[in-house]
């Protein structure tokens, strides 16, 4: 049974001339329409995730990875036109067409998102614990003791010092903020977690600890995940299957080992050869 099933995801920024999708993409070598200048952030992206599976999405900057992540996480479109079909096991219909309340409820329950930018994901004036508690409180938890215990457990699980949980989040280090985001995403026992660049901006040793921590929790909780990263190492470490994106299109897909060892697409070959 497929847990998350997405098809024909598309996001276009700017006034589209109608032929943008045909005029852009990997074959055209650009994601900006030569006719009208609209940017096709992603198009024709289809993917599915099984329960407990980790799907990796790699690609260079601007290849449309984050746009796909936002669509999968049911984030509200602030601009541009989005279309496509996202289905989650146990929920009826195309969730991209669902009303705000349904998407809001899902985002506080079944779907967790770790944002690329900390400021999008956390309220830095709140305490670290408050940020995690917000997810629980929005999901209807009304017992202070229960909320407190759950936040403490999550802090221990994600290896954030528990004695710092009542300090403002802006006083946390970058690695701690990233962990708090992961704790927040996991707070309500979601079915699937979307991680957008989970290690960007962290130094290598902290990256390793955050990835180890996430891999351990992911296996323990058996939560499905979509990991978006420009870093092949991250995807190699975490993902069972991998999608390679370029110019807003998926150019190659397969088991992570296969993609890494035997890349078919020319771009994937370049990408893997260029790893320092």
């Amino acid at each position, binding site marked *: 049974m497929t847990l998350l099933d997405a098809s024909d995801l598309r996001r276009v920024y700017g006034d589209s001339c109608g032929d943008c999708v045909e005029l852009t993409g990997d074959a055209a070598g650009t994601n900006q329409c030569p006719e009208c200048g609209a940017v096709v952030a992603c198009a024709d992206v289809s993917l599915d995730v099984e329960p407990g599976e980790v799907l990796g999405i790699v690609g260079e900057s601007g290849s449309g990875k984050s746009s796909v992540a936002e669509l999968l996480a049911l984030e509200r479109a602030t601009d541009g036109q989005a279309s496509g079909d996202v289905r989650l096991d146990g929920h009826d219909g195309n969730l991209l067409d669902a009303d*705000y*309340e349904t998407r*809001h409820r899902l985002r*506080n329950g079944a779907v967790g998102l770790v944002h690329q930018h900390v400021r999008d994901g956390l*309220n830095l004036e*709140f*305490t670290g*614990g*408050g*940020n995690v*508690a*917000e*997810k629980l*409180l*929005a999901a209807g938890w*009304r*017992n*202070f*003791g229960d*909320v*407190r215990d759950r936040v403490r457990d999550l802090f221990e699980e994600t290896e954030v010092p528990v004695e710092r949980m*009542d300090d403002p989040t802006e006083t946390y280090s970058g690695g701690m903020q990233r962990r708090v985001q992961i704790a927040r995403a996991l707070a309500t026992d979601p079915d699937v977690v979307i991680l957008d660049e989970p290690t960007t901006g962290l130094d290598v040793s902290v990256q390793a600890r955050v990835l180890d921590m996430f891999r351990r929790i992911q296996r323990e909780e058996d939560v499905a995940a979509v990991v978006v990263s420009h870093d092949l190492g991250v995807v190699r470490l975490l993902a069972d299957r991998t999608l390679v994106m370029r110019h807003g299109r998926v150019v190659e897909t397969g088991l992570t080992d296969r993609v890494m060892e035997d890349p078919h697409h020319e771009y994937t070959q370049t990408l893997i050869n260029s790893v320092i």
Partner: protein
Amino acid sequence: MTDAGADAADGTEPAAAAESGTQISATSVADAVDDLSGEGLSGYNYAYLDEHTKREVRRAILKGIAIPGHQVPFASRPMPLARGWGTGGIQASLSLLGPDDAFKVIDQGSDESVNAANVRRLAETTAEVETTTDTTEADVIQTRHRIPEEVLDEDQILVLQVPITDALRKVDSSDAANRRRHAHANYGKMWVHLYENVVEWGEIQIAARYPAMVAGRYLMDPSPIPRWDLPKLDDADNLFVFAAGREARIYAVPPHTDVEPLAFEDKSFQVERFPDQSCHSCGSTDTYLTEIETEEGTESDGGDRLYVCNDTSFCLKRQDDPGLAKDHHLDREGVDWGPGTPGGPAGADRDELAEGDGGDDA
């Protein structure tokens, strides 16, 4: 009022006025004022506001009643006092009052504050209403930051002056974002505020403007009434109208509406506690008390620490009849109205009430 002006102005020629557009034939300011006031109050519409304005305010009130706790915009006219001094309350009161009504105005429990007296006089002269200080006799009561101790009934309307209409502004200064939160009943941020409050203080420390859910749907700022008064909003017999002149918003709690203060299951809403205190004037132990300064100064200056009832009108009644119940004027007995409603020995059960029933009532 004109005497002092007349003395000062006597003897000066109104030459400047004569040269400008308006011709004033009088030789003194006093005469000029007399000329101008010839029309007097008859130049004003009944109850100061014009009929269209009153109709608009009434419509806003009706809409507010239809959607309990929802903030309804209205035009908010300039009034003869500064915005923030009760202009919203006056507009609501004057739109509701008719010539047969009795009007009471209280300012933080007192009928005699300058602002309350002035608002009362404005209604008296323009709407020709009776005014009263007796809560039980009033048809419309305009109040700043208190709900009377005596139980209001279904024929009465309480108009509350509101300085800040949105409870969410405490957690986000963006009104646009807050309107979206209200539309989606998304109050997570306010709950985090409460959570962090408990983390910091061990209990919820919000002195006034305590946020409450109205009819299970809208989060409402109940105006800066003390927590003591908040349980009175729940399932009351009377209509509550909240009006903010500066922010041009009206909202309402209709009779018998659920009003639930935000609180955790294990960190309940609590009203103010006055352990072992009673009113210095009437001896009441079941009313909201305020500390007063004696002639020797406050406690720190060597004076006594004295408490008196905040609701002066009820305190005067209690001084005549110490056993007077808060629901003495109603047919029914034991009407639930806020904390400390009589029923046990005075003073003995209030801490208990404050700890337990205060939360349960809510």
